[in-house]
């Protein structure tokens, strides 16, 4: 356990995050000591997204994932239970798995040969009788397992902290939104699978630039993504104005930033003003007609499921689950810290599990031109984050705070969505919510100080 930084020189850590005035010191994005404390205070305690059960359908299947800077093995054991283990041998630390995914009977360390069952038990120790004299207690030297793992409608989440609240409690009133993200387009729970493999690449910026601005920074779109909108990369091509998203049928709704400042989650979401869901609008004109036929049929299923039900928050929107994963209808974005100035960016793309191949192929093509390291939209984003980081490193630059004042003082609640805080659809409320949770995690010695939260603080906030 590292000691907690409560002050730096004559300034407290909290002074670097002035949420009342919307002024945030650049130091929290570029300082190595603060970054190291983030690994301990945030990534060693928070619930983190580690994958999806569709990646490991069979006993012995495994996939490599990450929690913070550290690699983990997500594996389905021979009894069909899912585990997550730190990818390091308990003997001398070597990685026990060097493949991104596969199927195995055991994980054997290539250094000295300690071997672990898929349930993490140490089952093979070379020279156990001759050299260890039968004295090594193998039961104490299994792979190090996460403290808690949650399979939430097919999505897998884990925390290293046994005192963390349950994952559903961690989500709070945002739980239905996250559940919604893992529905099929027809409204079937746990109805998606992920394209494999994940796309992974490094970007030269601090993890908070993408992590806190994705689903939190609506203002950048009109400037940053203007060129990609002109390029008409959406599935409808140049029809209907050629936006980068799909065509949406008219439906009375109001877009907001919605967030849970006490928990740090939030997104760009809609409040529908009628029960149910919109009609389907043909939107896949660049693909074979079977694609639209499929999605139209799925929409009818969803309309039947939610007939008479007011949907809020996640529908048509996006979600950030604190601290570093954004879940959108067709992509999951994970921002792994990889050094104070390096982020390992992962993309995983959900698609309806039972969709015909022609639909999956269409979805894959759309996402390839949209997201990831070669996608047109995220190339725009990366350019900003990758230059903002070095431009914030300098002595003079660090004297100047970032401005997070957009919409400050205009947050409000809405009785239709109790527990949520709202702001205008273009605001920096989501980012302030994340920074609020950030300082709480950074200062708190344990979960006792940061959970449960007091939801009334929402209404008290200016």
């Amino acid at each position, binding site marked *: 356990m590292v000691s907690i930084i409560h002050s730096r020189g004559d300034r407290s850590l909290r002074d670097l995050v002035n949420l009342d005035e919307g002024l945030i010191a650049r130091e929290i994005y570029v300082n190595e000591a603060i970054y190291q404390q983030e690994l301990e205070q945030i990534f060693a305690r928070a619930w983190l997204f580690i994958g999806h059960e569709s990646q490991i359908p069979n006993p012995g299947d495994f996939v490599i994932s990450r929690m913070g800077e550290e690699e983990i093995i997500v594996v389905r054991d021979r009894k069909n239970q899912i585990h997550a283990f730190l990818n390091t041998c308990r003997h001398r630390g070597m990685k026990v798995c060097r493949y991104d995914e596969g199927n*195995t*009977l*055991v994980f*054997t360390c*290539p250094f000295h*040969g300690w*071997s672990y069952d898929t349930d993490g038990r140490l*089952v*093979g120790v*070379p*020279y156990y009788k001759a050299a260890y004299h039968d004295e090594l207690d193998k039961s104490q030297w299994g792979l190090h397992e996460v403290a808690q793992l949650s399979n939430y409608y097919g999505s897998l989440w884990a925390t290293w902290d046994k005192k963390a609240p349950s994952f559903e409690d961690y989500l709070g009133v945002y739980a239905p939104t996250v559940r919604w993200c893992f529905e099929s387009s027809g409204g079937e729970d746990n109805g998606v699978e992920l394209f494999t493999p994940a796309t992974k690449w490094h970007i030269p910026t601090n993890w908070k630039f993408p992590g806190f601005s994705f689903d939190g920074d609506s203002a950048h779109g009109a400037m940053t993504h203007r060129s990609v909108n002109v390029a008409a990369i959406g599935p409808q091509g140049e029809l209907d104005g050629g936006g980068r998203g799909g065509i949406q049928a008219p439906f009375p709704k109001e877009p907001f930033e919605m967030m849970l400042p006490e928990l740090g989650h939030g997104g760009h979401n809609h409040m529908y003003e009628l029960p149910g869901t919109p009609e389907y609008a043909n939107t896949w004109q660049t693909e074979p007609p079977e694609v639209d036929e499929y999605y139209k049929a799925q929409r009818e299923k969803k309309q039947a499921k939610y007939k008479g039900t007011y949907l809020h928050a996640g529908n048509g929107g996006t979600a950030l689950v604190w601290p570093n994963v954004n879940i959108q209808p067709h992509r999951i974005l994970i921002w792994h810290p990889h050094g104070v100035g390096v982020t390992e960016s992962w993309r995983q793309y959900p698609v309806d599990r039972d969709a015909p191949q022609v639909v999956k192929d269409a979805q894959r093509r759309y996402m390839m031109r949209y997201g990831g390291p070669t996608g047109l939209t995220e190339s725009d984003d990366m350019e900003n984050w990758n230059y903002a980081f070095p431009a914030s490193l300098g002595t003079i630059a660090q004297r100047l705070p970032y401005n997070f004042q957009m919409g400050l003082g205009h947050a409000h609640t809405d009785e239709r969505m109790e527990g949520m805080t709202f702001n205008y659809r273009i605001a920096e409320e989501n980012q302030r919510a994340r920074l609020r949770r950030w300082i709480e995690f950074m200062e708190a010695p344990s979960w006792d100080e940061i959970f449960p939260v007091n939801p009334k603080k929402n209404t008290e906030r200016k």
Partner: protein
Amino acid sequence: MTSNNEKPNADDLINVNNTVILTNLPEGQKVKLRDGSVAEVTANPRDGGWIFIKFIESPDDPSLVGTEDMAFAADVVGLVD
């Protein structure tokens, strides 16, 4: 390299120095262990370090016959049959 479905050549299982090539041992292959035991391969993780075995003969400890265990590469000293 052999797969589980192919019957390997003898040269694929042991080299000129009489070192057993663990990764290539198919299920059902009988092996001799350092303590004189004879065992049958029941599963092979193909990691080059370990095989899963069932004891067929165990002169030093006959109670092991019929039991299953893992055998480390250094303890697999030869092939039987």
